[in-house]
């Protein structure tokens, strides 16, 4: 009940944020603008719509995860609202977990809205036979990516300023998408030290490209459920570890 209250309050705080509403409208407009773009191209309509639509969902979701995530805890500390929460019969770990759940609810509802608009355009405007399983798989994996990025943002915000937390989180997001390529190229290197370094980084940081199945929608490919289960565990493990680390930092923090 208490956890749910803080989570819902987080959701309420986020959806009443005018910047968020602005960014959401902008992203929805980008998706809708694909309807005009397809008029200017010959063929490949479906590919353009899927690329831009899923790209907008990915960008908007990650931006929300970073910017709402870094603010959730840091803003509570900065604006001292955390004082009136932590002084109530609430454990500090409950606060972090409920903030995280609230953030995920906010992101999931917003991107789900964008996803439904994209599906409507694909089905009724482009008249594309949407491969539902592949599309839902791609969308689900995007949600897993948002889950990890949110946890990264919350982790940094427990001990760093919002600007630094944003910088760290975006860096992690970039590296996360480049890890597969880095690993591939490091294997071709002759330096054993470099190979070891990249391998270590690869296993320490989340490989976000494992969660990228956007092109499967275009090529009507589905992946094995075992893969979905495996990457779900992979994303869950990283998120749980990051939230656990956030809790450890937050539990010891003095609110001066």
């Amino acid at each position, binding site marked *: 009940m208490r956890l749910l209250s803080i989570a819902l309050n987080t959701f309420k705080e986020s959806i009443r944020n005018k910047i968020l509403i602005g960014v959401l409208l902008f992203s929805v407009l980008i998706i809708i603008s694909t309807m005009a773009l397809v008029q200017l191209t010959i063929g490949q309509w479906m590919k353009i719509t899927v690329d831009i639509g899923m790209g907008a969902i990915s960008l908007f979701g990650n931006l929300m995860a970073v910017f709402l995530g870094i603010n959730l805890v840091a803003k509570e500390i900065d604006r001292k609202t955390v*004082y009136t929460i*932590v002084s109530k019969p609430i454990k500090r770990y409950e606060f972090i977990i409920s903030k995280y759940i609230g953030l995920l609810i906010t992101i999931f509802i917003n991107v789900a809205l964008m996803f439904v608009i994209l599906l409507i355009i694909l089905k009724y405007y482009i008249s594309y036979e949407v491969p539902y399983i592949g599309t839902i798989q791609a969308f689900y994996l995007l949600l897993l990516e948002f889950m990890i990025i949110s946890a990264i943002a919350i982790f940094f915000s427990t001990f760093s300023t919002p600007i630094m937390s944003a910088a760290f989180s975006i860096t992690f997001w970039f590296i996360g998408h480049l890890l597969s390529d880095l690993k591939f190229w490091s294997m071709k290197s002759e330096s054993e030290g470099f190979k070891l370094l990249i391998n270590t980084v690869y296993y320490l940081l989340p490989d976000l490209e494992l969660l990228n199945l956007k092109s499967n929608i275009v090529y009507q490919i589905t992946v094995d459920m075992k893969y979905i289960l495996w990457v779900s565990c992979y994303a869950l493990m990283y998120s749980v570890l990051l939230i656990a680390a956030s809790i450890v930092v937050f539990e010891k923090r003095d609110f*001066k």
Partner: protein
Amino acid sequence: MDNILEIRGLSKTFRAGFWLRKVRALRDVSLTVRENEIYGFLGPNGAGKTTTIKTILGLIFPDSGKITIMGKDYRDISTRRYIGYAPEQPYFYEYLTAYEFMKFYGSLFSIPSSELKRRIPMLLDMVGLGGKESLQLRKFSKGMLQRIGLAQALINDPKFLILDEPMSGLDPIGRREIRDLILALKKSGKTVFFSTHILSDVEMICDKVAIIIEGEIRKEASLSELLSIDYNEVEVVFKGGNKSIKDDLKKIGLLMKDIDDTCYMLVSKSDISKTVDVIRLGGGDILSIIPKRRTLEDIFIKEINC
């Protein structure tokens, strides 16, 4: 009467600045708040009042010392069920309406909705915010935020209220209303611990006072004790007498006023007999001898200058 709060030997050091220099915020702080008391925690800005309060509430971890709330260790989260806390500066969720705000804090104590429906309008009325239920907090003035801060501290019907500078940001009428509210809370059996640097607030409503300066408790006593123990002068008022009286008295004490043959003078406690003798021998009539009590301000300034 039981002790509601007991602090023994509380110390806290912060690291501040680029070189992380150690700053001692609290030094061996000890104090006791008894049931149904209004306890004034007095100190200048930066004396350690808020740090002490934050430590009691588990927002800051002390380096050493012991805090007991209603007989339990302060880290026992169950103690927070009985505490109401209003912070110094009213920073709240500004996108919420007053009703949503109160409901949110009520839900943190798992208070049923039906009970909240009854309690919220009553509390908003009590702090002078009746009819503002659907107004968003971002439209509130500083004084209104201070009041809703107090209302949220009362949502769980706490036994023990901790108020950090509850009168700051209020106009004289608002200050009086909050003082009356604190007195009403005491009447209903609650214990109130509040910090302030405004002496008149303490003098008017407190049963007990602690003065904290530079992180150290300099004095802790009941208000009556504090104001009566520290006097060593009396005001003597007399009438009439021969002309030499005044010259003789000027050698003993300070002649303050001489209005229509009535003289007011200030003498030290040890010189009372001598003064009385001079007046009687000079043919004057003593009208009154009143101990000149020190005000809280005198005591406070003396402690600061120590």
